[in-house]
């Protein structure tokens, strides 16, 4: 068909092609203005559509940003509310645990103070030493014994009596001083106790102050989030991304743990549900093993939810405490039962593996050798079978974190995608516009010969018109008439 078309005008291909070219150029020349209008209209419509699309995408991105901001804000608020709540619980526990004993502590301190007071009073009752004993003794001793033996004797007697009275008085004073010292030394532990009690009170008050400053910090942050401060929002976004990656990592680790768990119980499960039955493309025993693991994870979720560690199910969180405690015990019991089943399955797996090994050895013609310390891997498998369900139960924590952070991360991803799409739309519109300009120029390039001819004729006509105008009277413009 194309060759027929080429030879339509002449048997000579070159001549025929030349005719075709002429026809084409002529057609293009004749339809130039229409083609240009068509191309421009097409470019305009594509450009406008692209701009419209970009605007719609930008608006959607704006809405999504607001929604993401609201989600982030709400998550941050919730997180801080929980933290503040926890701090208040701590303050409450400090008050109930420590400051509830304050009346007895106060009584203790006042008892100690009154004891000290009493002892102090007892200590100051000590009679003071008679002030002039020494002077009296010296005065009596200094009276001259002037020859009279009787006077001298009397004076000596008086001196002796005064001296012995002084000695007695001194002895009594020393004794009372000793009692005072004893009383004062008895006060020392009381002072120490008082000091200790006051230090205790100070420590408790200090810890309360610490908690109060932590609460203040949280409150400041909470206010910043409520007001939508840029810095607080940036901190929340970064925290969300960190949470996303960390929880994803922990979940991957949990998946590996689950796989090991599955390997432990899948084979012995075929002893219980049979190894030849299939559900779809999977063995029923494999599905049963998976179900056990899933139920363990579900029980773990409920357990942590009942303990109010996670908040995935508001219904469990809002249960009354009695019911919640019951739920804790029920889920813990089920988890323990499942862990025990897993441990026994792990043991069975070991027995089956031993049996299979023995069979293989006998089939290979070798005598069955009893390996030493076979109990070690058996016990190890049983312990793993028992521990792994409890370890998997804690998956609830990273799962909650992952779910919460995924909302933010997905929102951010969608926002970025919309932004990129809007830019692409704008770019597409501009590219199409430029392309159409290029095509129009290309079009004119193809028909440049007739165009040049047209320009030449137009220029000739213009020249002629100009010469005609110059021949008419100057200053008279007919068009104005």
């Amino acid at each position, binding site marked *: 068909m194309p060759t027929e078309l080429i030879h339509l005008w002449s048997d000579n291909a070159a001549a025929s092609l030349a005719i075709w070219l002429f026809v084409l150029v002529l057609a293009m020349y004749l339809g130039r203005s229409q083609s240009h209008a068509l191309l421009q209209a097409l470019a305009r419509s594509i450009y406008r559509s692209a701009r419209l699309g970009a605007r719609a995408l930008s608006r959607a991105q704006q809405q999504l940003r607001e929604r993401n901001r609201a989600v982030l804000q709400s998550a941050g608020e919730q997180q801080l509310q929980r933290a503040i709540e926890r701090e208040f619980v701590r303050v409450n526990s400090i008050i109930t645990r420590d400051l509830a004993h304050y009346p007895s502590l106060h009584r203790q301190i006042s008892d100690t103070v009154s004891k000290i007071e009493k002892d102090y009073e007892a200590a100051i009752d000590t009679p003071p030493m008679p002030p002039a004993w020494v002077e009296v003794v010296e005065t009596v001793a200094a009276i001259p014994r002037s020859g009279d033996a009787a006077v001298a004797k009397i004076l000596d007697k008086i001196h002796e009596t005064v001296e012995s009275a002084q000695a007695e008085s001194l002895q009594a004073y020393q004794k009372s001083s000793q009692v005072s010292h004893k009383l004062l030394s008895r006060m020392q532990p009381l002072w120490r106790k008082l000091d200790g009690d006051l230090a205790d009170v100070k420590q408790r008050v200090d810890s309360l102050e610490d908690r109060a400053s932590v609460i203040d910090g949280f409150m400041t942050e909470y206010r910043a989030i409520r007001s939508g401060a840029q810095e607080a929002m940036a901190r929340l976004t970064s925290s969300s991304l960190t949470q996303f990656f960390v929880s994803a990592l922990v979940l991957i680790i949990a998946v590996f743990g689950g796989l090991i768990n599955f390997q432990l119980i899948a084979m012995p499960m075929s002893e219980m549900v049979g*190894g030849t*039955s299939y*559900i779809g493309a999977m063995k029923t025993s494999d599905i049963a093993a998976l179900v056990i693991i899933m139920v363990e994870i579900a029980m773990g979720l409920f357990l942590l939810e009942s303990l109010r560690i996670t908040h995935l199910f508001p219904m469990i969180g809002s249960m009354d405490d009695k019911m919640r405690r019951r739920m804790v015990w029920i889920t813990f019991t089920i988890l323990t039962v499942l862990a025990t089943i897993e441990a026994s399955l792990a043991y069975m797996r070991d027995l089956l593996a031993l049996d*299979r090994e023995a*069979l293989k050895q006998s*089939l*290979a013609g070798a005598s069955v050798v009893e390996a030493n310390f076979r109990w070690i891997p058996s016990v190890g498998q049983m312990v793993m079978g028992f521990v792994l369900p409890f370890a998997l139960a804690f998956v609830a924590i990273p799962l909650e974190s992952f779910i919460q952070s995924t909302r933010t991360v997905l929102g951010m991803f969608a926002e970025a995608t919309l932004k990129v799409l809007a830019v692409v739309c704008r770019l597409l519109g501009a590219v199409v516009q430029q392309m159409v300009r290029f095509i129009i120029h290309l079009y004119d390039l193809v028909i440049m010969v007739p165009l040049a001819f047209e320009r030449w004729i137009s220029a000739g006509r213009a020249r002629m018109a100009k010469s005609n105008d110059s021949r008419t009277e100057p200053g008279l413009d007919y068009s104005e008439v």
Partner: protein
Amino acid sequence: MTYLRVNTGLIIAALLLTLVGCGETRPQHRAVYLLMDTSGTYTEELAKAQGIMNYLLATLDSGDAVAVARIDSGSFSEKDIVAKATFDERPSVANQQKRAFKQQLDVYVKSVRHGSRHTDITGGLLQASEFLNETGAGEKYVLVFSDLEEDLEKGHIRDFPIALEGIRVVALNVTKLRTDNIDPRDYLRRLEAWQKRVVEGGGQWAVMNDLERLDQLIAAR
């Protein structure tokens, strides 16, 4: 309210039916039939057949079926089946079955003193295809442990097509006869003739003389 209950009941019933339907055993199991040539000097090769069977027992799983039969003067008979078993779905029971199977085979190999006078391979194949089709297995194998030289008793008719749809026939340890050494084309012709019969019967044909490559014998799971 009653309408709602009826609807819920119907949905639960449908779900249960779906689950029960899904729970049916899929025809993924394997069935293997080992034909042992007991004619003439080939009886000396039976120890190798024992080795193959031990390998098979270690390879097959719960739900798989296995049978060992001898190629006799007239092999299309239940009496020629030395041992057969379909392994239980419980692995521990399956292991016990394998032990019992091995014991049966050992006793039989020990008891073989004289070879049969004739070699009815076709009869054995017919018997094998019957057994394999009855098992309803997804993968069916006939392992022919023989030199493939058929020697029929007078009056036995075996020149008709054998139905072997979906069965993979593997010739194992095809020993060369004295005449093959003189003219190897006899050996090649013999193999070709059997291949033609098996393929015409709808089966697949393979030869495995190197018993070191037993791991290629049955599709691994």
